[in-house]
């Protein structure tokens, strides 16, 4: 099923989507475009290369409330946050980011115990992928077999033409969504052609790339290499890279209480932070920033591969673009492998 809508009618379409469920879509802010829950259709933009932060917040918000409690004199009142999420729509997700969901699925829903917060939202969400039409020099999603107009993992895939937004249902879920929105028109043959062409062109767009062969093992082998100190020298040990990353998933669990009322929540954490592995005893297995940088790289390119047979990186280039000192993870991995 291929549908279309005039770009001038985007607002109308977005409004219709809001009717169908909680909508997450790109919104322009001061520093760039980011995914937000949409209340006002006019906020949504399709004019962006990629968002500043990844769309992981749709399933894994920075702060994820689990239990609200009220401490009373003798007892504690507890209210669990419901996991029955409304249907959700994630709109305008770039192909590399779509891939990140699948990677995160492995950890959250397959590694034995299922994380219900991820799982429930994931189940209830329709993903509307969105083709790139250019390549940023920081990107390297090609290394993971993803291309600019890759429809894999999307329920609906969108291509922006000059006048229209073309939407193709990829899954049944997508089909259901598209067919339920009246504002959409059926695509014409020329649209179909254009769509196919864009998919083809997308596959031809070249990003930077990297051969992943043997990377996991080599990184594991060079655990003790002085390379890490060298490569971590400029690193500030801030957490920007982990926060903007679509596949970084480390979190903390905190009880945040004020005046006897509080919430137990999962909150994003970062392996770049000093206190991440600091034990109550004062012992810290990772005191050096080189150890922490190594952890981040190895977790993505080695440990995750060992555990889940997939690299925990989609080459979206966000960490590189956001790094205050221009550390580029692709170069780090490349040089690491070369140094062995």
């Amino acid at each position, binding site marked *: 099923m291929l549908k279309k809508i005039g770009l001038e009618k985007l607002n109308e379409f977005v409004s219709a989507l809001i009717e169908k469920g909680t909508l997450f879509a790109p919104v322009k802010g001061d520093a760039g475009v980011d995914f937000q829950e949409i209340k006002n259709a006019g906020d949504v933009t399709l004019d962006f290369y990629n968002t500043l932060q990844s769309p992981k917040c749709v399933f894994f918000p920075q*702060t994820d409330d689990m239990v609200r409690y009220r401490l009373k004199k003798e007892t504690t009142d507890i209210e669990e946050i419901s996991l029955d999420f409304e249907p959700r729509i994630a709109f305008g997700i770039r192909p590399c980011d779509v891939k990140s969901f699948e990677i995160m699925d492995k950890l959250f829903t397959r590694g034995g115990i299922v994380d219900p917060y991820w799982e429930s939202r994931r189940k209830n969400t329709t993903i509307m992928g969105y083709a790139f039409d250019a390549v940023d020099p920081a990107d390297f999603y090609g290394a993971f077999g993803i291309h600019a107009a890759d429809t894999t993992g999307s329920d609906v895939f969108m291509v922006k033409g000059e006048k229209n937004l073309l939407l193709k249902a990829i899954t049944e879920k997508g089909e259901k969504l598209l067919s339920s929105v009246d504002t959409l028109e059926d695509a014409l043959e020329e649209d179909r052609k254009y769509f196919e062409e864009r998919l083809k062109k997308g596959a031809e767009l070249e990003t930077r790339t990297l051969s992943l062969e043997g990377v996991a093992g080599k990184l594991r082998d060079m655990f003790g290499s002085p390379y890490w100190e060298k490569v971590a020298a400029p690193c500030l040990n801030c957490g920007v890279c982990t926060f903007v990353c679509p596949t970084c998933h480390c979190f903390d669990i*905190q009880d945040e209480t004020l005046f006897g009322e509080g919430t137990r929540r999962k909150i994003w954490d970062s392996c770049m932070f000093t206190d991440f592995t600091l034990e109550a005893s004062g012992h810290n297995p990772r005191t050096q920033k080189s150890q922490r940088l190594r952890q981040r790289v190895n977790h993505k390119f080695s440990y995750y591969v060992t555990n889940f047979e997939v690299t925990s990186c989609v080459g979206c280039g966000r960490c590189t673009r956001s790094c*205050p000192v221009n550390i580029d993870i692709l170069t780090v991995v490349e040089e690491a492998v070369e140094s062995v």
Partner: protein
Amino acid sequence: MKDIENRLKQEAKRLLESGEAEVVLAYGRGYDEKHPMPYAAKAVSDVDNIVFDEYCTFNMTRYLTEYPLGTKIAIAVKSCDSRTLIVLMQEEKVKREDIVILGIPYRDMIDSKTGKAIDNSTACNLPNPVLYDILLGDEVTERDDGSPYDVLKELEEMELDVRWEFWSKEFSKCIRCYACRKACPMCYCDPCFIDQSQPRWADKSPSLESNLMFHLTRFYHLAGRCIDCGECSRACPVDIPLHLFHKKVSKECEEMFDQVSGMSLDDKQVMVDFKMEDSDEILL
């Protein structure tokens, strides 16, 4: 600029060869031309990797406190960076005799993220380093850029509630990645108060309240120490104009204590030094 790069390489080579410096903190190549990186040359063979161009905005003093006291370090500094050095020396985090200061007389740097020139609205933008051993070029002549506090005018003219709204909006954006404090050469505390769990000074989840707790405390810790290099704002992924707040605090400190941070090795930090003439305004 190429001259500066060449001089930088030349001096780095000389210092490493002679053993006058064990490390030269300068700039190196990044993943493309517009994105150089901070670079620590430790051997003569590393010197070739040194670059200097208008994107080399980094305040390299940020890395000084990572080296054990007594390490002989040569460091490339621009104007604000040299002021950082002075403050770090006042605070005894580095010793004057351990540092060879390679001054860079250049000020028209460009923020690679925005493509905009770095001027006195986002940094101190003095023309020349305040303190150096070797100046890698001729002194830049003064030009009237106005005061680094001119940019505050708009803020200062805001009604209090408008100003509160402005900052509330800005601080609500914070995602607590802590790039600002990590990019800051004065934020050498390890652990930072915000990382602690006993007590936890602010909630870990980003909310206006906890973000304010973090930023306001950090601003206070930087009072009279910030040298207006603007690294915090450049590092911020969500573009919070942190430098404006720092500038405001610096301005107040200057007015109250009659001292500009990082301008003289003989100064003492205003917040831990008591002088009879100090303003009492802060108490009111």
